[in-house]
């Protein structure tokens, strides 16, 4: 009779994990491709406000970034008021002109008129510093600016 004895049920068969590396590699490649290494490490808080009438910043043209915001934790010695950051360090207003000149010097000549200055300003900063920077930019004739924002309902900014 043993011939007909039921085979012992060994539970559910184990799930094959052979394709796990493939899945992980797929994700890995996605993130490798999508990653943009930060150009500057920020020393300030930089939570951007949101707006819904935004245009994409044209990456075909050269872009320079100016950051403004409160010094983040660890940099409290620079005060609690919004500060300006150019490249990797805190800067004063009178350095904006030199910064723009340096950015322009790094460009091909035909691209210089298309240089856009993207202002990445923290939502809690006040307009005083932004206005000062705008005035400095006018002095060096860098007139194309972009207020970088997130995408969302602008009414939520005011809360």
């Amino acid at each position, binding site marked *: 009779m043993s011939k007909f004895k039921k085979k012992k049920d060994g539970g559910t068969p184990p799930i094959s994990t052979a394709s796990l590396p493939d899945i992980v590699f797929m994700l890995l490649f996605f993130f490798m491709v999508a990653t943009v290494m930060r150009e500057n490490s920020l020393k300030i808080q930089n939570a951007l406000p949101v707006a819904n*009438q935004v245009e994409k910043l044209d990456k075909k043209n050269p872009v320079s970034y100016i950051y403004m915001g409160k010094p983040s934790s660890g940099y409290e010695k620079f005060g609690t008021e919004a500060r300006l950051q150019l490249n990797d360090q805190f800067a004063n207003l009178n350095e904006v002109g030199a910064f723009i000149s340096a950015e322009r010097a790094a460009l091909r000549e035909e691209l210089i008129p298309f240089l856009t200055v993207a202002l990445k300003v923290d939502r809690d900063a*006040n307009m005083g510093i932004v206005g000062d920077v705008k005035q400095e930019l006018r002095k060096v004739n860098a007139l194309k600016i972009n207020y970088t924002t997130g995408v969302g309902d602008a009414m939520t900014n005011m809360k």
Partner: protein
Amino acid sequence: MAKRSAPEVNAGSMADIAFLLLIFFLVTTTIEKDSGINRKLPPIEELEEDVVIKQKNIFTVLLNGKDQLLVEDDLMELKDLRAAAVEFLDNNGDKSCTYCKGLKDPASSDNPDKAIISLKNERETSYAAYISVQNELVAAYNVLRNRRGYELGSKEGFKDMNFVEMQKNYKDARFVGNKVKLKAVIDQIKLEFPQKLSEVQ
């Protein structure tokens, strides 16, 4: 000599290595924001002759230090700003604008070409509030341009496309259609509703 087959490399830890890399990239990834409101600053050199602009052609928006909105010297809620700006731009006081649908109020702006929105702020104004107001004013221009886009688009063969979509399509490489014609329409709309928004301090 007897041939020995090469021993197989154990690939069991490949997943671990891949996971390690994956986690590294997951942590370091920051998706940079690259959208925003484009503006053009006025050049600094002062014009010799003072351009005389009639008071009725200027729409003053003041954002004070307490983030209160004063439109033409009256307190206003942010949500009403868009409609007020549209009404001002579209007013067509001198009846020279054939595509406007405004009230033709002689006490308000003459035509969209002459109408100027002047945005003032104080030093204590918060940046978030300022961006909200900028956003609403740009939205007002877009409302009018979109309306005009529908009108012109159906004439020129770009049916059911508003101004914002036209601009998007113009930049889109996959867009099938006459881009030269589309550009002409976009430029015409931009000319008909020029964005005259001045930021004074």
